[in-house]
């Protein structure tokens, strides 16, 4: 009698222990055998303001309606706070299940935390639909992140101001751009807006010259090895120096913010104080908020960064990036991957394009929803580009990437040098 009771007790105890272990284990993704068990996924996104704020919440609600066992806990986090919160979260024992991921070298660095989930096995059926763009969220060929929108950098220009200065077609080469600048100045219009305070807009210029001067493989190698000693990079600096000598930017550009302020360079474009700006596809949305001109959308046009005579890069190559997500390791990986698939589904992507003005959807099938001709032109350039170079401060790991931005900004302020720029990305420098 006693032995049976002891055995039964032992069995129950063992079962309890096993169940407890299964419930609390943050371990392997396959431990959760019952995929219908209720799950809560925490989601960190940067859409703190309307319309994205409401849209993401809607996406979460809709997904929950379709999958009642999955609850999404939405945590909007202000964009600048990500640099602080993500490393802390990845250090802690309770990171969010999904967080915003911009890919490239930053993602590679985050991988060192050991908390980024390899989504390859979950997304392989559908990741091909996203095309080459998804590669920017791979590290060593493994998919640790998924994009939800893409970005391309190009010239946003005021068609009305161009017309006023007598410019009939946008420039296709740098010399043409320079002569157009002269025409604009002759009519009292500051040609190009630049948000020098933020540093990364300066970097767009230098990087585009590099993309024009250097072949695709040289750039790729440079990013992978954090090494820009190839001569074409120095040529880019030379091109930039010559261009800067023509004084193309608004006065005091060193202190002008790029966005997030009514007196930013985007605001200047919106209010007609400058005729064009080299910026990402978010520019129209940003500009709209900085002006009372309701017709600003129809006044903006887009053209690609002009060709540089003698450059070895393909003139159709573009500088770009995008926004995406990463999942953290744990029991929620499959559910996380499924949710990300939902965000990249054509319906949701079209919703993002039309209601949130995200620019370029990660899912090419949703591009038909783009109505603005200017954004369409940008999307077209992105799709037909020979090479989409991710902005260097994103392609490189964070440390050399930011050092590069700072070195280029110093150069724009007249206090830098080519060697400072080239050497900024080597690991022991930039202090």
């Amino acid at each position, binding site marked *: 009698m006693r032995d049976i009771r002891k055995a039964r007790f032992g069995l129950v105890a063992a079962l309890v222990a096993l169940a407890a272990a299964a419930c609390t284990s943050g371990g392997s993704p396959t431990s959760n055998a019952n995929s219908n068990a209720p799950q809560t996924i925490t989601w960190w996104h940067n*859409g703190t*303001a309307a319309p994205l704020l409401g849209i993401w919440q809607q996406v979460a609600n809709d997904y929950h309606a379709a999958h009642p066992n999955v609850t999404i806990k939405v945590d909007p986090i202000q964009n*600048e706070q990500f640099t602080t919160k993500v490393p802390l979260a990845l250090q802690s024992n309770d990171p969010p299940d999904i967080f915003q991921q911009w890919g490239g070298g930053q993602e590679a660095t985050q991988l060192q935390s050991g908390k980024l989930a390899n989504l390859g096995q979950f997304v392989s059926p559908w990741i091909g639909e996203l095309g080459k763009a998804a590669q920017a969220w791979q590290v060593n060929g493994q998919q640790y992140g998924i994009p939800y929108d893409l970005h391309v950098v190009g010239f946003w220009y005021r068609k009305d101001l161009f017309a006023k200065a007598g410019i009939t077609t946008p420039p296709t080469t740098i010399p043409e751009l320079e002569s157009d600048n002269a025409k604009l100045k002759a009519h009292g219009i500051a040609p190009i807006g630049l948000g020098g305070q933020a540093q990364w807009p300066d970097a767009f210029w230098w990087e585009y010259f590099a993309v024009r001067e250097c072949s695709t493989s040289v750039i790729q190698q440079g990013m992978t090895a954090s090494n820009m000693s190839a001569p074409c990079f120095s040529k880019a600096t030379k091109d930039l120096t010559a261009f800067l000598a023509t004084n193309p930017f608004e006065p005091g550009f060193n202190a002008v913010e790029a966005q*997030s302020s009514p007196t930013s360079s985007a605001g200047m474009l919106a209010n007609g104080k400058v005729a064009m700006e080299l910026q990402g596809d978010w520019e129209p949305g940003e500009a709209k908020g900085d002006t009372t001109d309701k017709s600003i959308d129809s006044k903006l046009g887009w053209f690609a960064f002009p060709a540089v005579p003698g450059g070895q890069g393909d003139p159709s190559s573009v500088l770009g990036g995008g926004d995406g997500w990463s999942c953290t390791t744990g029991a929620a990986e499959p559910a996380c991957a499924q949710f990300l698939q939902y965000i990249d589904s054509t319906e949701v992507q079209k919703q993002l394009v039309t209601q949130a003005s995200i620019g370029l959807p990660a899912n090419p099938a949703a591009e038909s929803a783009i109505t603005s001709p200017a954004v369409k032109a940008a999307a077209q350039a992105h799709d037909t580009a020979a090479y989409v170079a991710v902005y260097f401060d994103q392609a490189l790991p964070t440390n050399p990437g930011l050092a590069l931005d700072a070195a280029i900004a110093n150069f724009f302020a007249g206090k830098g040098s080519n060697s400072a720029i080239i050497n900024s990305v080597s690991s022991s420098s930039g202090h």
Partner: protein
Amino acid sequence: MTVLSAARVRGPADTAARRRAWITRPGTYLVILLVVAITLVPMLYLILSGFRTTGQLGSNPNGLPHPWVWSNYASILESAVFWQAVLNSAIIAVVATALAMVLGSMAAFALSRYTFRGREGLFLLFTAGLLFPLNTAALPLFLMLQKIGMNDNLFGVALPEAAFSLPVTIVILRPFMRAIPGELEDAATVDGATRIRFFVRILLPLARPALITVGILAFVTSWNTYLLPLIVLSTPSHFTLPLAVAMFQSQYSTDTARVFAYTSLSMLPALSIFVFAQRYLVGGLVGAIRG
């Protein structure tokens, strides 16, 4: 007349009237006007900008509200998030201030009116805390708070804030407490009071201006602290005001007009406390006098 022997002055004969005249001299008025202009005009810009849209601010940064946009202030005052943030900020600030004042005055008392070995070293230790900005302590503090389970907890913000306010509090309070004559304490002892009682009943009331000062400083510091609540708090319903304002800033744009409206409103509690408390900084004497 011994009082003045150290401050004996000579000069042309003067009357009290002439002394009063200083205040009415036009020069003084000009100074006051200039000071008020420089301090208040930017604040007015801030407050009035809340009555415009961000688009208006971009199109015409130098203009006045026209038309007056009420929706910024209205929507903020109607939002539960704002009031929740006010409550959170208030709870944290009150706790942090109370702790800093109580513990700070205790420590300042010990460091100013007791002699013991290591006293100056201890004071230097507290002063050292002043030299260590919160920014750099953020990461280890976060990990520590997580270990003791104080993450996402209002007290997890209030306690470190109080701790970081201790150095300033002690540095300010110590000389004020030191200046109170020892004879007062002797007299209190003769009357049968313990030193602690002297501390509570006599010293603290006498040090009131200094206490008010450190209280105001601690409150305002806590009210505006951004980094500490950022790393400690994760649930939006726990957010403080500086964190809540970030909801008007997205990746590519900021609703600056809204931010200005929000900040203008956020200042009101701290300003009210100042108006209330500064009465104790009146020129002249208040306070219990024994004997």
